[in-house]
């Protein structure tokens, strides 16, 4: 399933890029993140909690950066699972930062492959959840950017 999301941040592209690669600050912006551990400069291990109605799922996984072109483009893969509900996810993530009049447009193209029991909820639920999390992520990024560049 493909998810396309984008949002605009009122900050220069370089500043946005720096924030996206400043892991401690970035992890404060990702909704539901529980921990991030840097394994090497291209690999991270993390735990993320996602809630959909009554269901709370805790994914543990590895993020691998596959392409990094500062300050405009990066790609990564994410592989994770939640053993509690026997579900696994593989994500191919492509992100671009483009300079626009209002600052920087961040656009994401994400291919999500969800397997296991959670997959029964189907694409519409996953897409709606992705949209909600993206909006929250954008809000948190804006707060971080304002905080550092008043």
């Amino acid at each position: 399933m493909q998810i396309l999301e984008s949002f605009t941040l009122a900050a220069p592209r370089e500043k946005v890029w720096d924030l996206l690669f400043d892991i401690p600050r970035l992890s404060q912006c990702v909704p539901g993140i529980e921990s991030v551990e840097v394994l090497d400069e291209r690999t991270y291990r993390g735990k993320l909690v996602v809630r959909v109605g009554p269901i709370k799922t805790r994914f543990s996984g590895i993020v691998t950066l596959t392409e990094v072109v500062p300050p405009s483009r990066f790609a990564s893969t994410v592989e994770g699972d939640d053993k509690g509900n026997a579900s696994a996810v593989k994500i191919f993530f492509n992100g671009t930062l483009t300079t626009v009049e209002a600052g920087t447009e961040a656009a994401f193209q994400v291919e999500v492959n969800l397997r296991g029991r959670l997959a029964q909820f189907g694409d519409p639920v996953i897409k709606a959840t992705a949209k909600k999390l993206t909006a929250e992520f954008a809000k948190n990024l804006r707060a971080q950017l304002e905080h550092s560049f008043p």
Partner: protein
Amino acid sequence: MSIHFLEPADISAATALLAEYGDEAKIIAGGTSVVLMLRQKLIAPSVLVSLGSLIGWDFIRLDADGLHIGALTRLGDAERSPVLSQVCPALAQAFSLVGNVRVRNQATLGGNLSAADYAADPPAMLMALDARLRLIGPDTSREVPLFEFFLGFYTTVLEPTEIISEIIIPPLPESARAAYLRYTSASAVGRPCVAVGAVADFDTDGKCQDLRIAVGAAVETPQRLARAEALASAQTLSDELVAAIAEEYAQALDPLSDVRGSAWYRREMIRVLVKRALMEVRDRHR
């Protein structure tokens, strides 16, 4: 892991337990939804607050301010209720289509609404009927119109400590007619692909005085379109007008794609079903 099964004796004890255990607790009423999620380990609460011992919340009563249905009323009991069959057969019809007879004899109306599953029958009909819900919390009691209740997939305005206590349906004039139609794409007893609840009232000249149409199951939360409903105001429901209203619903709603049908398919079926529902309320005599 063991689960503590608590059976409070009244609704205030139940909300107190929810406040005490917070995130660790889940409510269970009929259990048709909660037990499935437990078995699949989609939820792992340490406490289940059962509403099974609560007495007095499984009524169907006609009062001056409308029809009151206790949240713990089983869908099967509601479906067979003489009061409901007389006051609003279309709602009894919507209840009679949920799951199968074993599910309906177990599932409660409050549970059905709290689960906020988009592919459900009762919400569209209840929304067309302008239903309201009474929500009880530890120290609170509030009424919420059903159209404000659903926030998204499996998500409602219910606070973690709140429980639906009753569903209230305002009285309909004698001259009003209601219909519930649904379309299932997989099998006759499956969950709906599109659900349409319609209520219309006509004056003595046959002109439409009030029209309410809610579409569910094809969209994230049931939807009414004030603009499309207004087209019928003080009009005779001609075939052309019926088609125009159905077209509005088909064009304005943003249907979802899932195993029961693609967005394109659902849009076509919304057009067909809204039209049929309108014709039914127009042509059927009470």
